[in-house]
């Protein structure tokens, strides 16, 4: 041992101190959740809103809405009641995973904003870690009395629910469709009002498009680099088309018939016929490229959410603007494998994600935070958001019916797709299952047979779920 013993001794002391410190900090960050009625009568209130939105950048409409509408309006309302409210807005504008890390650190240390935006899919992980608590624990009875709940469909509420308890109020939802390029369809002799009713019809259309020089017929996301986009825009909508879900009746879906059928569809797309571009699925920037190809008319069909329409090919401010979007881009519902084979015997299927806002269990002002939260989810507030250019599919039926009327795609999704859509399970291990699914699609896209990939997925899933859950196969 040539290590200076003095150093070694110090290190030991520091380590011991750290163990103590680590234990101590766990207590601070626990799901203590104060008394719902604390500070209920306070006349001086400070609240912080944390969101992954920032002026001039990511989700800037949402940021502008909070700064220009929510804060002044709510402050004025409270002033009328004799309460002096100061609202701070903590803007972020980063990758979702980085944002998640930051708010997890905040909540873990017992800090963080009073109202925090999260992706619905994080609800389970955060709840299990004790970072967030059911709304009725944080706020009390006022939660059940809110009249907004009846405007939010049960399925949409699920996005912020864990173990049958609501942890937050949904902010928005979305839905997936098949986008197609009408000009290319015309060249290939396909109808302008195309609506496939089975997977085979998708493949037939792709074969017709394959005849056009320089065109990739179909993009179904596959592989790990696209991450959750592979699962949400590829695997899961297809799985719903076989009548199965990834998690049902407290059981994870293993190498079932449906999973194998989905993987087989992938191998038809990326196999010999090359109806899709298998290399694109391996590139780190594959998804960006697929958007650019679609915008420049080199890609025939693409499964995506309303995000593509709003933020990517939008001629006004999209990242791959498509000047003639409104004339050229068509959309169709995603068909089940064959009519009636979809989830709940449906002919068409979709998948949705959702975001929401939670109240920090450590807030000093639970009642006022709840008031602010419901204000942000009032019909007036949503209308102000949409009027400010942040057209979104809101969780509220009453708002969607009116405010989205001007946008054909958005109202199509709100009216036609949301009733048939499904959501992912908001469970802590879902992200790992999702990666296993992405790996299975990657294997098939690069030549593995559907059966082998399904078997590999099954054993991967067993490793993830362990002894704590059950798997259907």
């Amino acid at each position: 041992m040539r290590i200076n013993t003095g150093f070694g001794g110090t290190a030991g002391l520091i380590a011991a101190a750290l163990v103590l410190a680590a234990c101590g900090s766990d207590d601070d960050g626990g799901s203590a959740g104060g008394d719902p009625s604390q500070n209920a009568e306070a006349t001086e209130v400070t609240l912080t809103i944390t969101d992954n939105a920032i002026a001039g950048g990511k989700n800037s409409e949402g940021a502008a809405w909070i700064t220009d509408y929510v804060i002044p309006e709510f402050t004025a309302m409270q002033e009328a009641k004799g309460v002096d409210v100061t609202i701070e807005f903590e803007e972020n504008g980063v990758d979702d995973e980085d944002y998640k890390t930051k708010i997890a650190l905040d909540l873990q240390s017992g800090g963080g904003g009073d109202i925090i935006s999260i992706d619905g899919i994080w609800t389970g992980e955060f709840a299990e870690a004790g970072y967030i608590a059911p709304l009725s624990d944080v706020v009390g009875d006022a939660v059940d009395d809110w009249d907004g709940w009846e405007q939010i469909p049960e399925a949409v509420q699920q996005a912020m629910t864990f173990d049958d308890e609501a942890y937050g109020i949904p902010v928005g939802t979305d839905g997936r469709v098949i986008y197609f390029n009408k000009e290319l369809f015309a060249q290939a002799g396909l109808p302008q009002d195309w609506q496939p009713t089975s997977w085979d019809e998708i493949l037939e259309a792709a074969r017709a498009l394959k005849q056009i020089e320089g065109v990739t017929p179909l993009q179904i996301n596959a592989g790990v680099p696209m991450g959750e986009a592979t699962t949400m825009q590829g695997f899961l909508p297809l799985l719903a088309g076989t009548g199965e879900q990834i998690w049902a009746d407290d059981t994870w879906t293993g190498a079932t018939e449906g999973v194998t059928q989905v993987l087989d569809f992938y191998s038809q797309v990326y196999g010999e016929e090359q109806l899709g571009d298998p290399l694109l699925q391996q590139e780190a920037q594959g998804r960006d490229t697929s958007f650019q190809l679609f915008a420049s008319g080199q890609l025939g069909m693409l499964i995506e959410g309303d995000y593509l329409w709003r933020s990517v090919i939008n001629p006004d401010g999209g990242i791959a603007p498509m000047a003639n979007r409104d004339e050229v881009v068509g959309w169709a519902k995603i068909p089940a494998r064959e009519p009636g084979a979809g989830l709940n015997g449906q002919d068409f299927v979709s998948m949705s994600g959702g975001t929401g806002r939670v109240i920090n269990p450590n807030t000093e002002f639970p009642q006022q935070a709840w008031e602010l939260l419901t204000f942000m989810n009032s019909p007036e507030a949503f209308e102000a958001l949409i009027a400010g250019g942040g057209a979104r599919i809101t969780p509220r039926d009453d708002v969607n019916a009116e405010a989205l009327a001007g946008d054909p795609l958005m109202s199509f999704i709100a009216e036609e797709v949301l009733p048939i859509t499904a959501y992912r399970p908001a469970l802590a291990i879902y992200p790992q299952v999702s990666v296993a699914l992405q790996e299975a699609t990657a294997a098939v896209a690069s030549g593995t047979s559907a059966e082998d990939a399904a078997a590999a997925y099954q054993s991967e899933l067993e490793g993830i779920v362990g002894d704590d859950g059950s798997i259907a196969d």
Partner: protein
Amino acid sequence: MTVRQSLGVIGRYVFAGFVFVFFALPLLWLLTAPFDAAPSVQVSLPDFTLQNFRTLWDNPYAMRSLGNSVLIAAGTMAITLVLAALASYALSRVRIPGRDTLLYLLLLLSSIVTGTAAMVPTFLLMTELGLIDRQLGVVLVLTGGLLPTAIFILKDFMDSTPRSYEESARVFGASSLQILRHVVVPIARPGLATIAVWAVVQVWGNFLVPFILLRSPDRQPAAVVMFTFYTEGGQPNLALISTFSLLFSIPVVVMYLFVNRRYGFRFHGGIKR
């Protein structure tokens, strides 16, 4: 000039030419994309516009973040340089038992702290110290991470500076600090300049530390603000990103040119040992 010498000159310039192309080629995109209305990953003559610059100029955080970056980088660089110069000088001149082992252990530990795994302890520590949302906190964490390497490199330079000047300075009654400042630092200048540039580079691109430790967007440095130019689906807005990249790169380039010219990596002729 002999044939051999001319061949040598030609060889040198051919080599320099190849290296130049290799290093310059990827940079082309940075010169075309910012001026393009709808850039892709292709290097092409732009559909010329200055709109991207205007958009950034109007952005509430973009320009300020460059200032924040300068502040954080300069602060970290200054503290690192001063503390490392003092420490490496003393370590070079006085034998402390186990100093090399200690130094190397610290060097290795610094690679943990710059990694992602240490972010939770760092965050909790800064929370306890009340340094969350303060740029000083970012500077201190970064300095702690850079110091071992800085000392490690500088000690090499201090070791190889001749002692004779110090001896004579001492004879004339100069204090240790004066000797360090007026005798040792000028001689070790190339090494100090290397450390200065290196420290700034490390800080300039660091995303994780400031992102986690700072709260208000008007205190965030450019490395964090750059990520606001992605959509909510994670796709880059290439028009703004390429433009911001260009602006983001200019200060460090200027700084390098300045350091190079002022304190540069040149021969300090005249010192004979």
